């Protein structure tokens, strides 16, 4: 995965990002998308205790929650970057929510979705170098000094 690290926070270049909501989109060959949380998001949450996604078949509009994430000190939504119908849920998260901390871009994906109007909504997302630039700005603005990785996290070298 081509990536860049900003203050130790990983941004994978070929994904699309909703920068403010800290979610990523992977466009799959079969027309579905995979959605997840960014490295920054997992860092802000801390070790995750529960990650409950909405079930397959649920229709979601962009901005509405596709999952609820709970850590020792925080509870919050994973807001959907796109509108569509959830087709699959990452079953592994039910017993191992910390997969999101260890592998936010690969094994810790949250849901797969059949997007409603991908071509239109993807315009509001950023990818590649533009994503890296956008995150540089956000990390500076939000004063994120570093991203902590928990034990067993994916390494990006």
């Amino acid at each position, binding site marked *: 995965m081509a990536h860049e690290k900003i203050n130790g926070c990983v941004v994978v270049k070929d994904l699309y990002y909703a920068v403010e909501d800290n979610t990523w989109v992977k466009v799959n060959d079969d027309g579905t998308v995979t959605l997840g949380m960014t490295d920054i998001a997992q860092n802000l949450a*801390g*070790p995750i*205790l529960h990650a409950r996604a*909405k079930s397959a078949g649920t229709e979601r509009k962009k901005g*509405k*929650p596709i999952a*609820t994430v*709970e850590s*020792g*000190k*925080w*509870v*919050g*939504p994973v*807001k959907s970057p796109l509108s569509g119908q959830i087709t699959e849920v990452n079953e592994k998260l039910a017993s191992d929510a910390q997969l999101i901390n260890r592998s936010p871009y690969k094994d810790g994906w949250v849901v797969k979705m059949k997007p409603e109007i991908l071509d239109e909504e993807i315009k509001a997302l950023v990818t590649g170098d533009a994503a890296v630039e956008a995150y540089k700005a956000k990390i500076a603005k939000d004063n994120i000094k570093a991203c902590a990785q928990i034990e067993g996290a994916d390494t990006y070298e």
Partner: protein
Amino acid sequence: MKQALDLSYNKYSDVSFEEKERLMEEMKADDRWHHILYGCYECGICVAACPSARFYDFSPRIIAQAAAREDADLLYTLMNDSVWDCSQCFSCDRCPRQNSPGQIITVMREVAVKNGLKTAKEALEGYGRIIYKIMATGSQVSPDMLQPNAFPDWGGHVKEISDNLDVWRKALPPETLHTTETGWYVTDKTIIELYLIWHMTGVMDLIKGVDEGLHMILVDVMEERLEEAGYDDVNFD
């Protein structure tokens, strides 16, 4: 070490006096106001009894005084900088005038939350999970909240509990306590009734002012469950 409270006049100079007065009027309009404030002798009995006064630069007397004198500016400063130090013990209810500084503070906090004051949001940072638990499940704390990273100052004992949680919960004689996500078994019907109460009393709007993300997931959970139970027309927008 006490951080000194700055009570200088017009400390919040970026807020208009009209706004401070409006908020004071909101406090005074509360149904409880006339039962909790009868004027203040400045005797200080409340301060002597107050646990927060020993730890913070906090005084229930100053709050009662400001309320009794209707000092809108001072009340605004106190509502931002002081009211969250109160530990709500009501030791101050021993007031010889039968004031309740503790309840005055409760009213001030509600006004702060209702008006989305930044200091209220800051005071409640880190508290979101508890609100989520109580609003969504009808039970304030749950066994699975006993995690070492949530209570590090309680020592290694917390880890012992969290490691054994599943079995230890099953080793409880009362049948209603065989739970880990809630304190006890709460029936679905009961939860629905609770959600309807939150809906009918406007509590969810208060939460929206404190934490939008929290509000979003709560509303999501509640609307889904209410719909399943046949209440299609209940929404929290």
